């Protein structure tokens, strides 16, 4: 009993070449409205999509616009903001398409789910390397302070945050939201959809509180990013971690909405799992800057 | 015993010819060693070259043999051998042993080059500027300002006298005593430079914000030529370095006169 399901065009300007891919053939001719005999292989031959090219054009506009803006060229700022908007738009519609293909059209069989699963793991590993680079820079310059900053760390005249004020306060909030996301995960596994939504709301609110405190901390910080190597390494490491907290929060908000709409089931919630892994990565990473930059780096 | 005899007679014959301490037309080998470090470099080169020749001969033998065996007319049907675990083990283990033999002398030399001499007799600072070198002899001054400093510009081509080499001569040479431990402090005033004298085996990078130390022990008196070895703008190729090693007595008088000239 194969469900006849209609494949409507994903993008009005493009006519869909093949429907659900009769007999696994990408090059079947004519628009097939009924899937008489579904494909034999479990892979998902994606329909042609404009989002890769639009994403790269957005990236091009952002980079060129960014350079023009920083060199105060005419129109640099507009090109930069246009590029950023275009990238955000591409992300939005591309991932909307992925949700359609997976949840609404059911193309994501077990074999296809491996793709986003490995993809998110590798992405998180690359994020680990990304943040590791900044922690390396911070410890490189703090372990052997150069002569120009007096051979001492932190350099004289740099106002250093007391680690036991807001930074210490900020450190348990993230793991608590980590616990909340684990609660959500088990709620999904136990088919308690409504509880999972509540758990995700708790996770997101804790994350927003943590970002709020981080912003307050930056606002009250006596030094800023252009105050010697201390400022740049401090704000780069903690800033990018904060940025990743924001990315994780957005990811979790999307999962919350999808959970509310019933997209996530006990058997198939790869999107949520990726968000949970990402969130645990962000939790654990928080401990390193607290110990090495706030605490040790501030003595 | 007779090896020393031959070496002695050979070196006696060469002594009459001046050792080459500067770049020469059609020069293939390295310049003659003026310091023990340079001598070590030349010996290492010979060690490694020995292994290179061995490998070259062996590999070309195997290459020719393979071409021969897979020649279309002589052996039309190739053998179907795909694996050979023992030969595979041999051709991985053995080639990894050779670099170990090369590594031992090269590490020994490398660490001896980076030695910071325990008690140097003189400290000379070579400050790299964009397109000239400044030298500071500040062991003998009393105040912050009176150290003996002079700039060393290249002698342009049109003011060269006969016998002077093009692009290698300088107006003020670096005068150093021979047979004494020198500490050269090399640092730039602007962009990265590199203070290099091939015959004494020295190439010391001048990195902004860092004072780089290299120790030299010049064995014989003479004039040694070098050039800046770090790209740094238009006249990069026109900033030579000339080190003149003189005996201890001459060094005293030369530097002392210049010091008097400088201070009053």
């Amino acid at each position, binding site marked *: 009993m194969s469900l006849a399901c209609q494949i409507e065009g994903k993008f009005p300007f493009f006519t869909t070449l093949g429907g659900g891919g009769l007999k696994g053939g990408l*090059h079947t001719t004519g628009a097939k409205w009924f899937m008489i005999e579904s494909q034999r292989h479990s892979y998902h031959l994606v329909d042609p999509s404009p989002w890769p090219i639009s994403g790269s054009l957005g990236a091009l506009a952002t980079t060129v616009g960014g350079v023009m803006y920083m060199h105060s060229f005419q129109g640099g700022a507009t090109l930069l903001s246009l590029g950023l908007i275009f990238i955000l738009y591409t992300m939005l519609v591309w991932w909307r398409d992925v949700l359609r293909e997976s949840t609404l059209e059911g193309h994501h069989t077990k*074999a296809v789910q491996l793709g986003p699963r490995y993809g998110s793991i590798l992405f998180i590993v690359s994020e680990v390397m990304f943040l590791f680079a900044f922690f390396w820079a911070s410890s490189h310059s703090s372990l052997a302070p150069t002569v120009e900053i007096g051979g001492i760390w932190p350099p004289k005249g740099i106002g250093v945050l007391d680690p036991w004020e807001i930074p210490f306060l900020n450190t348990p909030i993230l793991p608590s939201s980590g616990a909340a996301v684990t609660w959500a995960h088990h709620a999904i596994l136990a088919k308690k959809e409504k509880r999972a939504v509540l758990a995700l709301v708790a996770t997101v609110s804790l994350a927003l509180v943590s970002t709020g405190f981080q912003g307050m901390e930056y606002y009250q910080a006596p030094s800023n990013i252009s105050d010697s190597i201390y400022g740049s390494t401090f704000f780069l490491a903690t800033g990018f971690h904060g940025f990743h907290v924001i990315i994780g929060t957005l990811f979790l908000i999307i999962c919350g909405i999808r959970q509310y709409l019933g997209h996530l089931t006990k058997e198939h919630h790869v999107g949520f799992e990726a968000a949970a892994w990402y969130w645990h990565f962000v939790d654990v990473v928080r401990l390193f800057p607290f110990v090495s930059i706030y605490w040790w780096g501030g003595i | 015993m007779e090896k020393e005899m031959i070496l002695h007679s050979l070196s006696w014959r060469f002594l009459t010819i001046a050792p080459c301490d500067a770049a020469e037309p059609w020069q293939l080998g390295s310049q003659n060693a003026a310091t023990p470090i340079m001598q070590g470099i030349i010996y290492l080169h010979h060690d490694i070259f020995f292994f290179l020749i061995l490998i070259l001969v062996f590999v070309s033998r195997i290459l020719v043999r393979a071409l021969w065996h897979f020649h279309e007319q002589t052996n039309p049907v190739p053998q179907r051998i795909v694996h050979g675990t023992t030969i595979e083990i041999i051709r991985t283990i053995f080639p990894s042993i050779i670099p170990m033999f090369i590594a031992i002398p090269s590490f020994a030399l490398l660490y001896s080059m980076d030695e910071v001499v325990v008690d140097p007799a003189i400290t000379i600072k070579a400050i790299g500027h964009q397109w000239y070198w400044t030298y500071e002899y500040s062991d003998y001054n009393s105040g912050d300002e009176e150290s003996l400093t002079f700039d060393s510009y290249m002698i342009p081509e049109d003011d060269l006298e006969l016998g002077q080499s093009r692009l290698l001569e300088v107006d003020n040479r670096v005068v150093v005593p021979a047979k004494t431990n020198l500490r050269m402090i090399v640092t730039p005033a602007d962009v990265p430079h590199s203070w290099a004298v091939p015959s004494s085996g020295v190439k010391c990078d001048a990195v902004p914000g860092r004072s780089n130390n290299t120790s030299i022990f010049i064995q014989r008196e003479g004039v040694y030529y070098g050039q800046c070895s770090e790209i740094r703008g238009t006249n990069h190729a026109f900033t030579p370095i000339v080190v003149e090693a003189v005996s201890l007595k001459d060094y005293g008088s030369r530097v002392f006169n210049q010091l008097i000239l400088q201070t009053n």
Partner: protein
Amino acid sequence: MPIATGLEREELEAELEGKKRFDMDAPVGPFGTKEAPAVIQSYYDKRIVGCPGGEGEDEHDVVWFWLEKGKPHECPVCSQYFVLEVIGEGGPPDGHGHDDDDDEDH
């Protein structure tokens, strides 16, 4: 029955019935000889098959070849015999042969 649609639904249905909708594992069986060749099941008339060779010592790098209905194939390296057994609808795998409704001419 969990909420699903399309191929994912078919996969879950097969799973509930204990069958395998997409069998991804390599077939395992005795070394195929001329008399008792290794039988490869296929939904179409031909299928790409990889022969990994025998057990232990005479195992060799996988050799890929097209195995067609009615044409037993011998592996060039270890001379293992393969024969195709069509269990599905047959026809060419890329679906060009006999399309159903629109062009009836061939």
